[in-house]
């Protein structure tokens, strides 16, 4: 099996099936590490990683941090609130300064699409996209895929319904780019003002009727509703949203009995997802979180360890 022949992880769109297979296989092999009594291995000892976050995040930042630490790397977190950004420093300057201190990889989250690409072009260090605006969130896409693969054995022919605000969702985009490479049938469902358009060439189907997307689905991925969208007039009220597009136990019965219920978190219970569903038997939401650490370990290992699949 070939190694990962790229410096950066910017998105799933430009990745090949072989690369994604390698990452998922590596994650599978590394996954048990997180449940061992003694978690730390020395694989990346001496490597320095920075998580450079221009947007608030708890889950993703901590997941990367733990992944790095389990592999023995040193990791520091830089958030926009405490960095030189407030002094007017540009993204490139900030990253170059970190590189000048000897950082091997920069994990970046940014509110603007393409920001990691700008960094990747100007740094020798590896750049991992931890979410860029409404563009991609490749590690979330990979952890979703790992979760699906574990439960379903693969992706081909699966009906995957992505429900909610796909327009503003980098999770939806990374899911689309990753899953359609393997022949999954991806549906987007949500209010017409929040539906991502322009993915016809990937075979993606869109509907404003959530029932149509849920019908016979193998996987339901419920997106977080960003409540500030309401102020911009993209949907009228939370109650109306829940009535038409909320994933309830009743609606979920339209899906296959063994449907996987996923959510990238954090959840708005009672809005995009009913509590009975979130905590129900089909929910794999906490397994997604576990897999997130595994996928991030795999990426750090493959980019910085230079290794083949473990």
């Amino acid at each position: 099996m070939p190694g990962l022949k790229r410096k950066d992880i910017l998105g799933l769109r430009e990745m090949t099936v072989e690369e994604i297979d390698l990452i998922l296989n590596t994650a599978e092999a590394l996954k048990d590490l997180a449940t061992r009594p003694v978690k730390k291995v020395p694989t990346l000892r001496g490597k320095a990683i920075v998580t450079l976050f221009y947007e608030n995040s708890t889950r993703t930042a901590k997941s990367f941090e733990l992944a790095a630490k389990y592999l023995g790397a040193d990791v520091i977190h830089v958030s926009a609130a405490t960095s030189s950004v407030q002094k007017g420093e540009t993204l490139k300057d900030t990253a170059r300064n970190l590189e000048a201190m000897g950082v091997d990889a920069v994990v970046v989250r940014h509110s603007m699409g393409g920001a990691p690409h700008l960094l990747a072009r100007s740094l020798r260090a590896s750049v991992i996209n931890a979410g860029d605006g409404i563009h991609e969130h490749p590690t979330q896409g990979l952890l979703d895929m790992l979760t699906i693969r574990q439960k379903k054995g693969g992706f081909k022919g699966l009906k995957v319904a992505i429900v909610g605000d796909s327009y503003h969702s980098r999770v939806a985009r990374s899911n689309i780019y990753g899953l359609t490479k393997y022949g999954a049938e991806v549906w987007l469902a949500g209010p017409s003002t929040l539906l991502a358009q322009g993915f016809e060439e990937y075979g993606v189907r869109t509907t404003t009727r959530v029932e149509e997307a849920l019908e016979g689905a193998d996987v339901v991925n419920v997106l977080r509703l960003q409540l500030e969208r309401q102020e911009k007039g993209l949907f009228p009220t939370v109650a109306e949203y829940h009535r038409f597009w909320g994933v309830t136990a009743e609606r979920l019965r339209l899906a296959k009995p063994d449907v996987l219920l996923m959510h990238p978190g954090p959840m708005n219970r009672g809005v995009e997802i009913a509590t009975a569903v979130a905590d129900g038997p089909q929910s794999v939401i906490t397994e997604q979180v576990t897999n997130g650490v595994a996928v991030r370990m795999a990426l750090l290992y493959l980019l910085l360890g230079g290794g083949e699949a473990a």
Partner: protein
Amino acid sequence: MSVLLIRGGRLLDPARGLDRVGDLLVEGSRIRAIGTDLPAPDGARVVDATGKVVAPGFIDIHVHLRVPGQEYKEDMRTGTAAAVRGGFVGVVCMPNTRPVVDSAPLVSHLLDLASREGLCRVWPAGAITKGLRGEELAEIGEMWAAGACAITDDGRPVDRAETMRQAMIYARQFDLLVMDHCEDRSLSGSGCMHEGRVSSQLGLKGMVAAAEEVHVARDILLALETGARVHVQHVSSRRSVELVRWGKALGARVTAEATPHHFTLTDQAVADMDYSTSTKMNPPVREEADRQAILEGLADGTIDVIATDHAPHHVDEKDVEYPLAAFGITGLETAVGLALDRLVRPGVISLEQLILLMSTRPAQLINRTPPALAEGAEADITVLDLGRTWTVRAEEMASKSKNSPFIGWTLTGAPYATIVGGRLRMLEMKVIAE
């Protein structure tokens, strides 16, 4: 008195029905003689134009010289050097400077500066409203008297329809062209590229084409209402072209320009160039159907002129996240090459049409005598080399700024010489400043 003999070129001036191989003798600022085998007078500089096309001088009616106030992006010398290097004998400079050109002294200042430092003719456009704020009319009459050739709030639209209506009524009495950057800003919002498939896939906020079209339609209706001459700047969408065609059919005095980037690129460039901010401009490049409509509009005369919207920016304003980057790209030094390579060579338009689009009609729109290949006319001449294949290189550009998506492109067809008022200002794409 300087003497220049342009020898052996194809003399092509479609407005005068001239198309013959011959010599053209320039004495001082004027064309003295047109003939065959004209002898070179003593001390004459001879330009061998064998195999080249000698045309009336090209004019770009949409240029940001950035003077006064933003000389770190461009200045009078570098901007006009870029113009003559690109084959232009004259430019209309936009008033969105610091301060805004919204009063007569600033127009006079620009004309004075151009006469001292400029390498080509410079015709300032004045603002429509004071400070480009879209509220009160600027001193349109005073600016006209000082030499302003048109009015525009370019860089931003005139938001309020009533303000635009009053501006049209007022400008009409001076027969001034009202040029508009058509954009409904409630629709374009914080978008940074064309709203469509590519923006969605790249996760960038888009600007819908309707943001432009709504204002194009408004301006045409107001032109019909007021009888004013209205010019749609940098038309970018299929429906905008259709609206202009419709407006002309209704009898509105509406004209339109298209830029080389809008007839060459689509929004796919943003993806292909991996978020390069050299693809960011307003209005944005749109879809293939839009580009095709612009080509049709150029071919059938719906679009009256080619203009560049030359918008130089410092590298610091471009080497940032895509949504944060300044809008605009340079255009003066690539326009003729792109027009020859993308329009004339594939037969979208004829060479004669190109000359009308880049010389005759631009001059007419701003009420200036069109350059002409005629004895006694001002010697404003552009010589074209249709056969030259060349590569666009940043380090060869005369502009102070290098924010062009065409750097590295290879084009066939280039400007060969630029003569401004009888002075040879460019030869073989090298600027002659003395």
